[in-house]
């Protein structure tokens, strides 16, 4: 009975809470906000000081990424890209390098450019490009994300590229177990007709200065994840966010109906305005999906 009273005090407008559900009081909103910040801090520091339980489960195959990429190209009338095993090896090496050096960028902290991997594996490129993706659960969502970004889409739908190589690596990146997709595009001097004049070089498409053939290095194995993935940082954040907003929306609806029926006059914000704003937050929380591209 006491618990019921406490719950009513928290979620239902009545005399004990000055006719406004306690959870809608400024003090409760502050507590909720700090609780959410605390959870984010926990997710950030847990990998450093606690067990490695954060990660993104994924089922991504290189073949599927190539198939979907070529599907997009064919749809706009471009020729499909040919799989080049050398490019795939280079892409795999780039992914492993990111895990080993713990960075998420086109350029490594030591200044290594993506093009170095092309050269290291003996790919004499005329044009080269790179797309990166991480934290996606499947190939389709990663390809869709690239297509939604103009610069990545430009790479995928460029007629300058003739070949493709995909590297899919799994491992620990900044304390989170994840899957990185490295998409390398290229064309060699042999399979491109010289374009004259070259008016503009698109971003991430760099003509090779002087291709150098070096001994083909083998990608070193990425660090093995220490333990099994238990918690997805994004999904758990999304779940907690949806629960918080859903709860507040429900309480606001009840609060609005009760105060309207009882003709309670009080100093406070408009219930409809709060409902609309939190409704937008709910919509955004539903729209956002896991996965990063650069």
């Amino acid at each position, binding site marked *: 009975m006491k618990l019921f009273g406490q719950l009513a005090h928290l979620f239902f407008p009545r005399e004990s809470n000055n006719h406004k559900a306690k959870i809608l009081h*400024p003090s409760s909103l502050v507590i909720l906000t700090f609780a959410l910040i605390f959870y984010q801090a926990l997710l950030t520091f847990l990998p450093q000081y606690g067990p490695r339980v954060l990660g993104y489960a994924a089922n991504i195959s290189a073949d599927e990424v190539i198939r979907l990429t070529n599907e997009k190209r064919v749809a706009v009338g471009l020729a499909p890209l040919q799989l080049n095993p050398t490019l795939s090896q280079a892409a795999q090496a780039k992914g492993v390098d990111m895990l080993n050096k713990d960075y998420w960028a086109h350029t490594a902290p030591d200044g290594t450019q993506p093009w170095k991997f092309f050269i290291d594996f003996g790919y004499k490129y005329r044009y080269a490009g790179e797309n990166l993706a991480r934290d996606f659960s499947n190939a389709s969502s990663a390809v869709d994300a690239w297509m939604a970004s103009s610069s990545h889409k430009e790479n995928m739908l460029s007629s300058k590229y003739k070949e493709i190589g995909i590297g899919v690596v799994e491992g620990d990146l900044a304390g989170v177990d994840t899957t990185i997709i490295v998409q390398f595009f290229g064309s060699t001097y042999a399979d491109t007709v010289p374009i004259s004049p070259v008016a503009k070089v698109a971003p991430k498409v760099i003509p090779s200065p002087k291709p150098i053939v070096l001994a083909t290095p083998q990608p070193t194995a990425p660090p093995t994840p220490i333990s099994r993935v238990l918690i997805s940082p994004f999904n758990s954040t999304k779940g907690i966010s949806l629960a918080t907003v859903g709860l507040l929306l429900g309480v606001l609806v009840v609060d609005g109906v009760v105060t309207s029926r009882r003709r309670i006059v009080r100093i406070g914000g408009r219930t409809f305005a709060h409902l609309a704003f939190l409704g*937008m937050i709910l919509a*955004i929380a539903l729209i956002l999906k896991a996965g990063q591209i650069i």
Partner: protein
Amino acid sequence: MKNFAKHLPHYLALFGVLIIGALAFYLFSYDRSFQTAVAIAVAIAYVAWGTVHHSIHRDLHLAVFIEYLLVAALGLVIIFSLIFRT
């Protein structure tokens, strides 16, 4: 409901801002910096709307302003958490 009908033009303006904000998130998915800017802009617009609306109706109090501010802050924390974790 009467209150809602009475302030319909005000609410339509607010709904317009919020719908544009949500649409921007949908159309510019994976553009984190743009989404961050949109989230901040919508939160500021929401607090400004509350301030102007209550000011016009002569019932603007510090408690009301703080309430809008806290709801906006809570919303921003939720959006930033999700953007940061995507």
